[in-house]
Protein backbone atom coordinates (compact mmCIF):
# COMPACT_ATOMS: atom_id res chain seq x y z
CA UNK A 1 0.00 0.00 0.00
CA UNK A 2 2.66 2.43 1.11
CA UNK A 3 4.78 1.49 -1.85
CA UNK A 4 1.98 1.96 -4.35
CA UNK A 5 0.34 5.00 -2.82
CA UNK A 6 3.36 6.73 -1.33
CA UNK A 7 2.14 7.29 2.21
CA UNK A 8 0.44 5.63 5.18
CA UNK A 9 -3.13 4.40 4.55
CA UNK A 10 -4.35 6.91 7.15
CA UNK A 11 -3.07 9.65 4.86
CA UNK A 12 -5.35 8.35 2.12
CA UNK A 13 -8.27 7.98 4.50
CA UNK A 14 -8.06 11.54 5.81
CA UNK A 15 -7.79 12.93 2.28
CA UNK A 16 -10.77 10.90 1.10
CA UNK A 17 -12.71 12.24 4.08
CA UNK A 18 -11.74 15.75 3.10
CA UNK A 19 -12.83 15.30 -0.53
CA UNK A 20 -16.08 13.65 0.49
CA UNK A 21 -17.11 16.46 2.84
CA UNK A 22 -15.96 19.22 0.48
CA UNK A 23 -17.70 17.43 -2.38
CA UNK A 24 -20.92 17.21 -0.39
CA UNK A 25 -20.78 20.95 0.37
CA UNK A 26 -20.17 21.64 -3.34
CA UNK A 27 -23.10 19.39 -4.23
CA UNK A 28 -25.39 21.35 -1.91
CA UNK A 29 -24.14 24.64 -3.34
CA UNK A 30 -24.68 23.33 -6.87
CA UNK A 31 -28.45 23.68 -6.49
CA UNK A 32 -27.99 27.44 -6.11
CA UNK A 33 -28.95 29.29 -9.31
CA UNK A 34 -25.57 31.07 -9.21
CA UNK A 35 -23.53 27.92 -8.52
CA UNK A 36 -21.28 28.43 -11.55
CA UNK A 37 -20.41 31.94 -10.43
CA UNK A 38 -19.57 30.64 -6.94
CA UNK A 39 -17.27 28.01 -8.46
CA UNK A 40 -15.58 30.58 -10.70
CA UNK A 41 -14.97 32.87 -7.73
CA UNK A 42 -13.49 29.97 -5.80
CA UNK A 43 -11.07 29.28 -8.62
CA UNK A 44 -10.54 33.00 -9.14
CA UNK A 45 -9.55 33.48 -5.50
CA UNK A 46 -6.72 30.95 -5.96
CA UNK A 47 -5.51 32.49 -9.21
CA UNK A 48 -5.85 36.05 -7.95
CA UNK A 49 -3.53 35.31 -5.05
CA UNK A 50 -0.98 32.88 -6.49
CA UNK A 51 -0.65 34.27 -9.99
CA UNK A 52 -1.51 37.97 -9.56
CA UNK A 53 -1.13 39.32 -6.02
CA UNK A 54 1.96 37.33 -5.04
CA UNK A 55 3.98 38.08 -8.24
CA UNK A 56 2.89 41.71 -8.04
CA UNK A 57 4.12 42.33 -4.51
CA UNK A 58 7.21 40.13 -4.86
CA UNK A 59 8.32 41.96 -8.03
CA UNK A 60 7.53 45.39 -6.53
CA UNK A 61 9.64 44.46 -3.53
CA UNK A 62 12.59 43.48 -5.69
CA UNK A 63 12.16 46.65 -7.73
CA UNK A 64 12.24 48.85 -4.62
CA UNK A 65 15.23 46.91 -3.30
CA UNK A 66 17.05 47.48 -6.59
CA UNK A 67 16.44 51.23 -6.53
CA UNK A 68 18.15 51.80 -3.19
CA UNK A 69 21.49 53.61 -3.03
CA UNK A 70 24.39 51.16 -2.69
CA UNK A 71 27.82 51.29 -1.26
CA UNK A 72 30.87 49.09 -1.52
CA UNK A 73 31.15 46.47 1.21
CA UNK A 74 33.76 43.68 1.04
CA UNK A 75 34.11 44.37 -2.66
CA UNK A 76 30.38 44.02 -3.32
CA UNK A 77 27.86 46.74 -3.99
CA UNK A 78 25.20 46.44 -1.29
CA UNK A 79 22.47 48.60 0.14
CA UNK A 80 22.75 49.56 3.78
CA UNK A 81 21.27 46.52 5.59
CA UNK A 82 17.62 47.00 6.29
CA UNK A 83 17.24 50.31 4.45
CA UNK A 84 14.62 48.82 2.17
CA UNK A 85 12.33 48.32 5.16
CA UNK A 86 11.78 52.05 5.50
CA UNK A 87 9.96 51.93 2.15
CA UNK A 88 8.78 48.33 2.27
CA UNK A 89 6.94 48.44 5.58
CA UNK A 90 4.79 51.58 5.08
CA UNK A 91 4.10 50.54 1.47
CA UNK A 92 3.06 47.07 2.59
CA UNK A 93 0.78 48.37 5.36
CA UNK A 94 -0.82 50.99 3.14
CA UNK A 95 -1.25 48.48 0.30
CA UNK A 96 -2.79 45.97 2.67
CA UNK A 97 -5.32 48.52 3.92
CA UNK A 98 -6.25 49.29 0.31
CA UNK A 99 -6.49 45.58 -0.51
CA UNK A 100 -8.94 45.05 2.36
CA UNK A 101 -10.89 48.32 2.28
CA UNK A 102 -10.91 49.22 -1.42
CA UNK A 103 -14.71 48.93 -1.71
CA UNK A 104 -15.26 51.94 0.59
CA UNK A 105 -12.01 53.76 -0.24
CA UNK A 106 -12.77 53.72 -3.97
CA UNK A 107 -16.50 54.30 -3.32
CA UNK A 108 -17.36 51.15 -5.24
CA UNK A 109 -20.45 50.20 -3.26
CA UNK A 110 -22.11 53.58 -2.72
CA UNK A 111 -25.65 52.71 -3.94
CA UNK A 112 -26.04 49.61 -1.75
CA UNK A 113 -24.26 51.30 1.14
CA UNK A 114 -26.49 54.36 0.85
CA UNK A 115 -29.65 52.24 0.74
CA UNK A 116 -28.62 50.49 3.93
CA UNK A 117 -27.07 53.27 5.98
CA UNK A 118 -28.35 56.49 4.44
CA UNK A 119 -24.73 57.70 4.22
CA UNK A 120 -22.18 58.06 1.42
CA UNK A 121 -18.58 56.84 1.26
CA UNK A 122 -16.87 60.19 0.79
CA UNK A 123 -14.72 60.10 3.97
CA UNK A 124 -12.80 56.91 3.25
CA UNK A 125 -10.39 57.91 0.48
CA UNK A 126 -9.18 60.83 2.59
CA UNK A 127 -8.79 58.65 5.66
CA UNK A 128 -6.79 56.04 3.77
CA UNK A 129 -4.53 58.73 2.29
CA UNK A 130 -4.07 60.19 5.76
CA UNK A 131 -3.08 56.84 7.27
CA UNK A 132 -0.73 56.24 4.34
CA UNK A 133 0.82 59.66 4.85
CA UNK A 134 1.33 59.04 8.57
CA UNK A 135 2.93 55.65 7.84
CA UNK A 136 5.43 57.06 5.33
CA UNK A 137 6.15 60.15 7.41
CA UNK A 138 6.75 58.02 10.48
CA UNK A 139 9.08 55.84 8.46
CA UNK A 140 10.93 58.91 7.16
CA UNK A 141 11.44 60.20 10.69
CA UNK A 142 12.79 56.82 11.82
CA UNK A 143 15.09 56.74 8.79
CA UNK A 144 16.39 60.24 9.52
CA UNK A 145 17.09 59.24 13.10
CA UNK A 146 18.98 56.18 11.92
CA UNK A 147 21.05 58.16 9.44
CA UNK A 148 21.96 60.61 12.18
CA UNK A 149 22.88 57.82 14.54
CA UNK A 150 25.12 56.04 12.01
CA UNK A 151 26.90 59.33 11.22
CA UNK A 152 27.81 59.94 14.84
CA UNK A 153 30.75 57.65 15.47
CA UNK A 154 30.31 57.98 19.24
CA UNK A 155 27.12 55.91 19.04
CA UNK A 156 27.54 52.29 18.22
CA UNK A 157 24.95 49.55 18.01
Amino acid at each position, binding site marked *: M*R*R*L*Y*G*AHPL*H*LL*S*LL*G*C*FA*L*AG*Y*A*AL*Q*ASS*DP*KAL*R*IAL*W*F*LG*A*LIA*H*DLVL*FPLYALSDRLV*GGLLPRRRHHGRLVAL*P*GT*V*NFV*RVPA*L*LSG*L*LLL*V*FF*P*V*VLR*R*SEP*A*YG*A*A*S*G*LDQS*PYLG*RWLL*ITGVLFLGSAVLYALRVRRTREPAHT*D
Partner: protein
Amino acid sequence: MTEVRDDGETTGPDYGFPAPVFRLLEEKGRPPGPLFNPRLWKSPIRGPWLTSVFAAVLLVGLPILIVTGLLSYLAYQPQFPGNAFPGDVHGLRLPYFTWPTNPSWLYRLNQGLHVGLGLALIPIVLAKLWSVIPKLFAWPPARSAAQLLERASLALLVGSILFELATGVLNIQYDYVFGFDFYTAHYYGAWVFLAAFVTHVALKLPVMVRSLRSRRLRDELRTPLAATVPEPLDEHGLVAIDPDDPTISRRGALAVVGGASLLITAVTLGETVGWRPSALLSARGQDYGDDPTDFQVNRTARTAGIPKDVSGWTLTVVGASTVTLTRDELLAMPQHTAELPIACVEGWSTVQTWTGVRLRDLVRLAGVERPESGVVTSLEKRGAFARAVLNRKQLVEPDALLALTVNGVDLSPDHGYPARIIVPAAPGVHNTKWVERIELRA
Protein backbone atom coordinates in the same frame (compact mmCIF):
# COMPACT_ATOMS: atom_id res chain seq x y z
CA MET B 1 17.49 10.04 -4.45
CA THR B 2 15.77 9.08 -1.22
CA GLU B 3 12.98 11.17 0.10
CA VAL B 4 12.79 11.90 3.81
CA ARG B 5 9.22 11.58 4.90
CA ASP B 6 7.51 13.88 7.37
CA ASP B 7 7.84 11.42 10.20
CA GLY B 8 11.56 11.15 9.62
CA GLU B 9 11.56 7.69 8.03
CA THR B 10 12.94 7.24 4.58
CA THR B 11 10.78 5.57 2.01
CA GLY B 12 12.28 2.88 -0.12
CA PRO B 13 11.21 3.69 -3.66
CA ASP B 14 11.40 7.20 -5.01
CA TYR B 15 8.12 7.07 -6.84
CA GLY B 16 4.67 5.74 -6.08
CA PHE B 17 2.69 3.73 -8.56
CA PRO B 18 2.96 4.09 -11.56
CA ALA B 19 6.65 4.91 -11.07
CA PRO B 20 7.55 5.37 -14.77
CA VAL B 21 4.87 8.04 -15.14
CA PHE B 22 6.05 9.98 -12.08
CA ARG B 23 9.68 9.58 -13.20
CA LEU B 24 8.85 10.84 -16.66
CA LEU B 25 6.97 13.79 -15.16
CA GLU B 26 9.98 14.76 -13.06
CA GLU B 27 12.58 14.33 -15.76
CA LYS B 28 10.81 15.49 -18.90
CA GLY B 29 7.78 17.46 -17.75
CA ARG B 30 9.39 20.56 -16.24
CA PRO B 31 8.00 23.64 -17.98
CA PRO B 32 10.64 25.95 -19.45
CA GLY B 33 11.40 29.27 -17.80
CA PRO B 34 12.62 30.25 -14.34
CA LEU B 35 9.39 29.67 -12.45
CA PHE B 36 10.07 26.02 -11.68
CA ASN B 37 13.74 26.53 -10.86
CA PRO B 38 14.26 26.32 -7.08
CA ARG B 39 17.01 28.95 -7.35
CA LEU B 40 14.34 31.52 -8.12
CA TRP B 41 13.47 31.71 -4.41
CA LYS B 42 15.84 34.08 -2.64
CA SER B 43 14.37 34.94 0.73
CA PRO B 44 16.89 34.07 3.44
CA ILE B 45 14.23 33.90 6.16
CA ARG B 46 11.81 31.48 4.52
CA GLY B 47 11.87 28.16 6.29
CA PRO B 48 9.85 25.63 8.25
CA TRP B 49 10.24 27.48 11.55
CA LEU B 50 8.85 30.75 10.25
CA THR B 51 6.04 28.95 8.40
CA SER B 52 5.17 27.09 11.59
CA VAL B 53 4.92 30.29 13.61
CA PHE B 54 2.30 31.61 11.19
CA ALA B 55 0.67 28.17 11.19
CA ALA B 56 0.46 28.13 14.99
CA VAL B 57 -1.30 31.51 15.04
CA LEU B 58 -3.77 30.31 12.40
CA LEU B 59 -4.29 27.07 14.29
CA VAL B 60 -5.66 29.14 17.16
CA GLY B 61 -7.50 31.75 15.12
CA LEU B 62 -9.16 29.80 12.33
CA PRO B 63 -11.12 27.39 14.59
CA ILE B 64 -12.59 30.46 16.34
CA LEU B 65 -13.65 31.77 12.91
CA ILE B 66 -15.27 28.44 12.05
CA VAL B 67 -17.13 28.14 15.36
CA THR B 68 -18.37 31.75 15.45
CA GLY B 69 -19.43 31.44 11.80
CA LEU B 70 -21.47 28.30 12.40
CA LEU B 71 -22.94 29.81 15.59
CA SER B 72 -23.99 32.87 13.64
CA TYR B 73 -25.89 30.67 11.21
CA LEU B 74 -27.63 28.96 14.14
CA ALA B 75 -28.41 32.32 15.76
CA TYR B 76 -30.63 33.02 12.74
CA GLN B 77 -32.72 30.06 13.95
CA PRO B 78 -32.85 28.05 10.72
CA GLN B 79 -35.42 25.67 12.27
CA PHE B 80 -37.98 28.32 11.28
CA PRO B 81 -38.28 28.37 7.49
CA GLY B 82 -37.38 31.73 5.97
CA ASN B 83 -35.32 32.81 8.99
CA ALA B 84 -31.83 31.85 7.84
CA PHE B 85 -30.00 31.68 4.53
CA PRO B 86 -29.28 29.19 3.05
CA GLY B 87 -32.55 27.69 4.27
CA ASP B 88 -32.22 23.96 3.99
CA VAL B 89 -28.63 22.76 4.19
CA HIS B 90 -29.46 19.04 4.37
CA GLY B 91 -26.53 17.02 5.70
CA LEU B 92 -24.60 20.16 6.70
CA ARG B 93 -27.24 20.93 9.29
CA LEU B 94 -25.93 21.31 12.81
CA PRO B 95 -28.24 20.37 15.69
CA TYR B 96 -30.83 23.13 16.07
CA PHE B 97 -31.33 24.76 19.42
CA THR B 98 -33.34 27.63 20.78
CA TRP B 99 -30.99 30.63 20.58
CA PRO B 100 -30.75 32.24 24.04
CA THR B 101 -31.58 35.85 24.94
CA ASN B 102 -28.95 36.02 27.66
CA PRO B 103 -26.43 37.64 27.83
CA SER B 104 -27.74 40.41 25.60
CA TRP B 105 -24.27 40.89 24.09
CA LEU B 106 -23.99 37.27 22.96
CA TYR B 107 -24.50 37.87 19.24
CA ARG B 108 -22.54 41.12 19.46
CA LEU B 109 -19.54 39.23 20.83
CA ASN B 110 -19.95 36.37 18.36
CA GLN B 111 -20.04 38.60 15.29
CA GLY B 112 -17.48 41.06 16.61
CA LEU B 113 -15.12 38.11 17.00
CA HIS B 114 -16.02 36.55 13.65
CA VAL B 115 -15.56 39.69 11.59
CA GLY B 116 -12.82 41.31 13.68
CA LEU B 117 -10.74 38.16 13.85
CA GLY B 118 -11.36 37.38 10.19
CA LEU B 119 -9.97 40.79 9.24
CA ALA B 120 -7.04 40.51 11.65
CA LEU B 121 -6.07 37.10 10.27
CA ILE B 122 -5.78 38.36 6.67
CA PRO B 123 -2.11 39.41 7.09
CA ILE B 124 -1.31 36.10 8.81
CA VAL B 125 -2.94 34.09 6.01
CA LEU B 126 -1.07 36.10 3.36
CA ALA B 127 2.21 35.68 5.26
CA LYS B 128 1.64 31.95 5.57
CA LEU B 129 0.98 31.68 1.84
CA TRP B 130 4.10 33.75 1.11
CA SER B 131 6.13 31.46 3.30
CA VAL B 132 5.15 28.30 1.42
CA ILE B 133 4.86 29.63 -2.12
CA PRO B 134 8.03 27.86 -3.37
CA LYS B 135 6.15 24.59 -2.91
CA LEU B 136 3.52 25.71 -5.40
CA PHE B 137 6.22 25.88 -8.06
CA ALA B 138 8.22 22.86 -6.91
CA TRP B 139 9.06 20.33 -9.61
CA PRO B 140 7.86 17.63 -9.86
CA PRO B 141 4.47 18.55 -8.42
CA ALA B 142 4.19 15.00 -7.09
CA ARG B 143 6.13 11.74 -6.97
CA SER B 144 3.20 9.61 -5.85
CA ALA B 145 -0.57 9.49 -5.77
CA ALA B 146 -0.34 10.49 -2.10
CA GLN B 147 1.40 13.76 -2.93
CA LEU B 148 -0.94 14.39 -5.84
CA LEU B 149 -4.01 14.01 -3.63
CA GLU B 150 -2.50 16.14 -0.90
CA ARG B 151 -1.85 18.90 -3.43
CA ALA B 152 -5.48 18.74 -4.52
CA SER B 153 -6.55 19.14 -0.88
CA LEU B 154 -4.21 22.13 -0.56
CA ALA B 155 -5.92 23.74 -3.56
CA LEU B 156 -9.20 23.33 -1.67
CA LEU B 157 -7.64 24.73 1.50
CA VAL B 158 -6.12 27.82 -0.10
CA GLY B 159 -9.04 28.38 -2.47
CA SER B 160 -11.60 28.17 0.31
CA ILE B 161 -9.81 30.40 2.84
CA LEU B 162 -9.25 33.07 0.18
CA PHE B 163 -12.85 32.68 -1.01
CA GLU B 164 -14.19 33.05 2.53
CA LEU B 165 -12.01 36.06 3.28
CA ALA B 166 -12.80 37.75 -0.04
CA THR B 167 -16.58 37.26 0.17
CA GLY B 168 -16.61 38.32 3.82
CA VAL B 169 -14.54 41.43 3.17
CA LEU B 170 -16.73 42.45 0.22
CA ASN B 171 -19.97 41.76 2.06
CA ILE B 172 -19.19 43.89 5.11
CA GLN B 173 -18.50 46.75 2.70
CA TYR B 174 -21.68 46.31 0.64
CA ASP B 175 -19.70 45.50 -2.52
CA TYR B 176 -21.86 42.76 -4.04
CA VAL B 177 -19.69 42.47 -7.17
CA PHE B 178 -19.63 38.67 -6.76
CA GLY B 179 -23.23 38.49 -7.93
CA PHE B 180 -24.31 35.48 -5.87
CA ASP B 181 -26.05 35.15 -2.53
CA PHE B 182 -23.43 35.90 0.08
CA TYR B 183 -24.92 33.77 2.83
CA THR B 184 -25.18 30.67 0.63
CA ALA B 185 -21.67 30.94 -0.78
CA HIS B 186 -20.05 31.82 2.56
CA TYR B 187 -21.81 28.94 4.31
CA TYR B 188 -20.91 26.20 1.84
CA GLY B 189 -17.45 27.69 1.30
CA ALA B 190 -16.95 27.38 5.06
CA TRP B 191 -17.67 23.66 4.92
CA VAL B 192 -15.14 23.16 2.12
CA PHE B 193 -12.66 25.09 4.25
CA LEU B 194 -13.53 23.10 7.37
CA ALA B 195 -12.90 19.82 5.51
CA ALA B 196 -9.58 20.94 4.02
CA PHE B 197 -8.42 22.64 7.23
CA VAL B 198 -9.05 19.66 9.52
CA THR B 199 -7.26 17.36 7.07
CA HIS B 200 -4.33 19.73 6.69
CA VAL B 201 -3.94 20.00 10.46
CA ALA B 202 -4.13 16.21 10.83
CA LEU B 203 -1.42 15.69 8.23
CA LYS B 204 0.86 18.57 9.17
CA LEU B 205 0.59 19.01 12.93
CA PRO B 206 3.66 16.84 13.64
CA VAL B 207 5.72 18.84 11.13
CA MET B 208 4.57 22.09 12.70
CA VAL B 209 5.45 20.97 16.20
CA ARG B 210 8.84 19.65 15.11
CA SER B 211 9.64 22.82 13.18
CA LEU B 212 8.62 25.06 16.08
CA ARG B 213 10.96 23.07 18.32
CA SER B 214 13.84 23.48 15.85
CA ARG B 215 14.45 27.05 17.06
CA ARG B 216 13.63 28.94 20.23
CA LEU B 217 11.26 31.85 19.87
CA ARG B 218 13.03 33.73 22.64
CA ASP B 219 16.34 33.48 20.79
CA GLU B 220 14.75 34.54 17.51
CA LEU B 221 13.30 37.62 19.19
CA ARG B 222 16.84 38.56 20.27
CA THR B 223 18.43 38.04 16.86
CA PRO B 224 18.98 41.30 14.97
CA LEU B 225 19.32 41.64 11.21
CA ALA B 226 23.11 41.46 11.34
CA ALA B 227 22.99 38.01 12.94
CA THR B 228 20.15 36.61 10.81
CA VAL B 229 21.11 33.52 8.84
CA PRO B 230 18.89 31.12 6.88
CA GLU B 231 17.41 28.06 8.54
CA PRO B 232 19.24 24.83 7.61
CA LEU B 233 18.16 23.32 4.28
CA ASP B 234 14.96 21.34 4.82
CA GLU B 235 13.25 18.38 3.20
CA HIS B 236 10.18 20.52 2.40
CA GLY B 237 12.05 22.82 0.01
CA LEU B 238 11.14 26.02 1.86
CA VAL B 239 14.67 27.20 2.67
CA ALA B 240 16.32 28.94 -0.29
CA ILE B 241 19.19 27.03 -1.92
CA ASP B 242 20.74 30.27 -3.10
CA PRO B 243 19.54 32.97 -0.68
CA ASP B 244 20.10 36.72 -0.90
CA ASP B 245 21.64 38.64 1.96
CA PRO B 246 18.92 39.23 4.55
CA THR B 247 17.17 42.61 4.46
CA ILE B 248 14.97 41.89 7.47
CA SER B 249 15.38 39.71 10.53
CA ARG B 250 12.94 36.97 11.40
CA ARG B 251 11.75 38.99 14.38
CA GLY B 252 11.35 41.98 12.04
CA ALA B 253 9.18 39.94 9.67
CA LEU B 254 7.05 38.72 12.57
CA ALA B 255 6.70 42.30 13.82
CA VAL B 256 5.57 43.53 10.39
CA VAL B 257 2.97 40.78 10.01
CA GLY B 258 1.73 41.18 13.58
CA GLY B 259 1.76 44.95 13.20
CA ALA B 260 -0.32 44.69 10.02
CA SER B 261 -2.83 42.62 11.94
CA LEU B 262 -2.98 45.18 14.74
CA LEU B 263 -3.32 48.03 12.26
CA ILE B 264 -6.37 46.44 10.62
CA THR B 265 -7.85 45.85 14.06
CA ALA B 266 -7.11 49.42 15.11
CA VAL B 267 -8.98 50.97 12.17
CA THR B 268 -12.04 48.71 12.52
CA LEU B 269 -12.54 47.64 16.14
CA GLY B 270 -14.41 50.84 17.02
CA GLU B 271 -17.47 49.70 15.06
CA THR B 272 -17.87 46.74 17.43
CA VAL B 273 -16.84 48.14 20.79
CA GLY B 274 -18.69 51.38 20.26
CA TRP B 275 -15.90 53.90 19.84
CA ARG B 276 -16.65 54.92 16.27
CA PRO B 277 -14.10 57.73 15.71
CA SER B 278 -11.32 55.11 15.76
CA ALA B 279 -13.01 52.91 13.17
CA LEU B 280 -11.45 54.93 10.36
CA LEU B 281 -11.86 52.41 7.57
CA SER B 282 -14.82 50.28 8.57
CA ALA B 283 -17.96 50.84 6.54
CA ARG B 284 -19.87 51.34 9.79
CA GLY B 285 -17.35 53.71 11.32
CA GLN B 286 -19.20 56.89 10.40
CA ASP B 287 -21.00 59.03 12.96
CA TYR B 288 -24.58 60.08 12.35
CA GLY B 289 -24.66 63.09 14.65
CA ASP B 290 -25.68 63.98 18.20
CA ASP B 291 -29.46 63.53 18.20
CA PRO B 292 -31.00 60.67 20.21
CA THR B 293 -31.85 58.81 16.99
CA ASP B 294 -28.45 59.41 15.35
CA PHE B 295 -27.02 55.90 15.34
CA GLN B 296 -26.37 53.17 12.76
CA VAL B 297 -29.25 52.51 10.37
CA ASN B 298 -29.35 49.19 8.57
CA ARG B 299 -32.07 49.89 6.03
CA THR B 300 -33.58 53.27 5.48
CA ALA B 301 -37.35 53.78 5.46
CA ARG B 302 -37.03 55.01 1.89
CA THR B 303 -35.23 51.86 0.72
CA ALA B 304 -37.83 49.73 2.46
CA GLY B 305 -40.64 51.65 0.74
CA ILE B 306 -42.33 52.71 4.00
CA PRO B 307 -44.99 55.39 3.37
CA LYS B 308 -44.27 58.83 4.84
CA ASP B 309 -47.67 59.00 6.50
CA VAL B 310 -48.28 56.09 8.86
CA SER B 311 -50.86 57.87 11.05
CA GLY B 312 -53.48 55.18 10.45
CA TRP B 313 -51.08 52.45 11.55
CA THR B 314 -52.23 49.67 13.85
CA LEU B 315 -50.52 46.58 15.20
CA THR B 316 -52.26 43.24 14.87
CA VAL B 317 -51.37 40.43 17.27
CA VAL B 318 -52.81 37.06 16.37
CA GLY B 319 -53.01 34.36 19.03
CA ALA B 320 -55.93 32.59 20.70
CA SER B 321 -57.66 35.87 19.96
CA THR B 322 -56.78 38.65 17.55
CA VAL B 323 -55.95 42.04 19.02
CA THR B 324 -55.55 45.29 17.10
CA LEU B 325 -53.80 48.17 18.81
CA THR B 326 -53.11 51.77 17.82
CA ARG B 327 -49.83 53.43 18.76
CA ASP B 328 -51.59 55.41 21.53
CA GLU B 329 -53.05 52.23 22.96
CA LEU B 330 -49.59 50.66 22.96
CA LEU B 331 -48.17 53.73 24.71
CA ALA B 332 -50.91 53.41 27.35
CA MET B 333 -49.75 49.87 28.19
CA PRO B 334 -47.02 49.28 30.83
CA GLN B 335 -43.72 50.51 29.33
CA HIS B 336 -40.39 48.83 29.93
CA THR B 337 -36.94 50.26 29.26
CA ALA B 338 -33.84 48.23 28.39
CA GLU B 339 -30.35 49.03 27.18
CA LEU B 340 -29.79 46.64 24.28
CA PRO B 341 -27.46 46.28 21.33
CA ILE B 342 -28.29 45.97 17.68
CA ALA B 343 -25.55 43.63 16.48
CA CYS B 344 -25.19 43.04 12.77
CA VAL B 345 -23.87 39.94 11.04
CA GLU B 346 -21.38 42.37 9.46
CA GLY B 347 -19.67 42.80 12.84
CA TRP B 348 -20.79 46.30 13.81
CA SER B 349 -23.04 47.00 16.74
CA THR B 350 -24.66 49.88 18.55
CA VAL B 351 -26.11 49.92 22.08
CA GLN B 352 -29.13 52.15 22.74
CA THR B 353 -31.80 52.62 25.39
CA TRP B 354 -35.11 51.32 24.14
CA THR B 355 -38.58 51.76 25.66
CA GLY B 356 -41.79 50.02 24.70
CA VAL B 357 -44.18 47.20 25.43
CA ARG B 358 -42.82 43.85 26.54
CA LEU B 359 -43.44 41.18 23.91
CA ARG B 360 -44.70 38.84 26.64
CA ASP B 361 -47.42 41.36 27.56
CA LEU B 362 -48.59 41.28 23.94
CA VAL B 363 -48.44 37.48 23.97
CA ARG B 364 -50.63 37.40 27.08
CA LEU B 365 -53.00 39.98 25.58
CA ALA B 366 -53.56 37.67 22.61
CA GLY B 367 -54.44 34.87 25.01
CA VAL B 368 -51.43 32.65 24.43
CA GLU B 369 -50.01 30.84 27.48
CA ARG B 370 -46.90 29.18 26.08
CA PRO B 371 -45.93 30.49 22.67
CA GLU B 372 -43.69 28.25 20.54
CA SER B 373 -42.86 30.91 17.98
CA GLY B 374 -44.04 34.23 16.63
CA VAL B 375 -43.94 35.42 13.03
CA VAL B 376 -43.25 39.14 12.88
CA THR B 377 -44.05 40.95 9.65
CA SER B 378 -43.09 44.44 8.63
CA LEU B 379 -44.83 47.15 6.64
CA GLU B 380 -41.94 46.58 4.27
CA LYS B 381 -43.15 44.51 1.35
CA ARG B 382 -39.88 43.25 -0.13
CA GLY B 383 -36.51 42.52 1.42
CA ALA B 384 -35.11 39.29 2.80
CA PHE B 385 -35.92 40.25 6.38
CA ALA B 386 -39.35 41.82 6.01
CA ARG B 387 -40.49 38.81 8.04
CA ALA B 388 -38.72 37.06 10.92
CA VAL B 389 -39.69 34.29 13.29
CA LEU B 390 -38.93 34.72 17.00
CA ASN B 391 -38.43 31.66 19.19
CA ARG B 392 -40.19 30.93 22.49
CA LYS B 393 -37.40 32.38 24.66
CA GLN B 394 -37.36 35.58 22.66
CA LEU B 395 -41.14 36.01 23.11
CA VAL B 396 -41.13 35.72 26.90
CA GLU B 397 -37.79 37.35 27.74
CA PRO B 398 -38.47 40.33 30.08
CA ASP B 399 -36.19 42.64 28.06
CA ALA B 400 -37.63 41.70 24.64
CA LEU B 401 -39.63 44.68 23.46
CA LEU B 402 -41.85 46.13 20.86
CA ALA B 403 -39.99 49.43 21.11
CA LEU B 404 -41.83 52.68 20.54
CA THR B 405 -39.13 55.12 21.64
CA VAL B 406 -35.36 55.15 21.80
CA ASN B 407 -33.20 57.28 24.08
CA GLY B 408 -36.32 59.06 25.28
CA VAL B 409 -37.73 60.13 21.91
CA ASP B 410 -40.01 58.55 19.31
CA LEU B 411 -38.31 56.15 16.93
CA SER B 412 -37.23 57.88 13.74
CA PRO B 413 -38.62 56.52 10.44
CA ASP B 414 -35.22 54.93 9.66
CA HIS B 415 -35.22 53.17 13.03
CA GLY B 416 -38.64 51.63 12.54
CA TYR B 417 -41.35 54.17 13.49
CA PRO B 418 -44.13 53.46 14.47
CA ALA B 419 -42.78 50.37 16.29
CA ARG B 420 -39.95 47.87 16.07
CA ILE B 421 -38.82 44.67 17.69
CA ILE B 422 -35.73 44.70 19.89
CA VAL B 423 -34.68 41.34 21.31
CA PRO B 424 -31.54 40.72 23.38
CA ALA B 425 -28.80 38.66 21.64
CA ALA B 426 -30.71 38.25 18.37
CA PRO B 427 -29.02 38.95 15.01
CA GLY B 428 -29.66 42.59 14.05
CA VAL B 429 -31.96 41.89 11.11
CA HIS B 430 -34.34 39.90 13.29
CA ASN B 431 -35.17 43.09 15.18
CA THR B 432 -37.89 43.79 12.62
CA LYS B 433 -38.64 47.45 11.96
CA TRP B 434 -42.02 48.99 11.01
CA VAL B 435 -43.81 46.03 12.63
CA GLU B 436 -47.33 45.47 11.34
CA ARG B 437 -48.29 42.04 12.60
CA ILE B 438 -47.23 39.40 15.13
CA GLU B 439 -48.65 35.93 14.61
CA LEU B 440 -48.17 33.62 17.58
CA ARG B 441 -48.02 29.86 17.39
CA ALA B 442 -48.58 27.86 20.55
